[in-house]
């Protein structure tokens, strides 16, 4: 069966760790990392990458445009 998978790339230095994407993810993929960026903000990361469908909800809501979403179909 074909399956659609997604992944995100976060521009860590732009991310302010607001967590709005974490709350918006319908598949509960994202979490704030314990690591911080140059400004001291915790950066968002994929805690459960296998659950990502590439719906782009996180990218759409991100106020700082730091999430790029990729999606691929596997046969």
């Amino acid at each position, binding site marked *: 069966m074909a399956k659609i998978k997604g992944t995100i790339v976060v521009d860590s230095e732009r991310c302010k760790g607001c967590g709005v994407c*974490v709350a918006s993810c319908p598949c509960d993929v994202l979490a704030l990392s314990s690591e911080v960026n140059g400004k001291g903000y915790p950066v968002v990361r994929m805690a459960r990458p296998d659950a990502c469908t590439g719906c782009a909800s996180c990218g759409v809501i991100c106020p700082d445009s730091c999430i790029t979403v990729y999606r691929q179909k596997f046969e």
Partner: protein
Amino acid sequence: MAEVEIKAENRVYAKPRLMLDNTMHYCPGCSHGTVHKLIAEVIDELGLADRTIGISPVGCSVFAYNYIDIDWMEAAHGRALAVATAAKRLNPDRMVFTYQGDGDLSAIGTAESIHAAARGENVVAIYINNAIYGMTGGQMAPTTLLGMKTATTPYGRDPRLNGYPYKIAEMMAHLDGATYITRQSVHKPANVRKCKAAIKKAFQHAMDGQGFSLVEVVSTCNSGWKLSPVAANEWLEQHMLPYYPLGDIKDVKLDPTR
């Protein structure tokens, strides 16, 4: 299963082309960033990148010109729609929009805003309503909800002392010159997508010479509200949306032979 390949043909969402790489000065989770992004996307999709003039206000979004790669002008506090009127009348082929907060458009700039709408200027006002003066430290705005605590109403807004909040979108809807008035929000991905459609419609409306459009975006000010970004989005849904309901308030077409 194989991993998703990071390549252009698999990319479904990225930072809009017109957004500059400057890191925004807004607080983490501020709605301003999301609305900026929508404007950048809409301008790019309509092919208006080299024909758009934005008017930035006084308020947190005073530096909007640092983030979207179009032509900008900076207006005196509240006077963005007066400046937009001049810009549009002198350059009728340009897309002219203002980006204003509630302190700018509906407090100090009420007169300019109401009269620009009444004259039916072919411009768009993007109106960010977060019910507070964010930049100056969270004081009460005209749009502050009853009972809402701010720096100047520490016990909550009391109508006997501070009066009642008002809805400038509904007020403008009574004016014949205003033809598209809508209220949106950006607190959830679905609302962000609807807000983008509304901004696009307003921009097309202005380019078609259909009169004045107002897109009110009910927004959060998590620093001013003293909440986390996620809690601010929930507070918005529970308290702001019952008083400022979402949806189109007015959508009429002008007679082209007028």
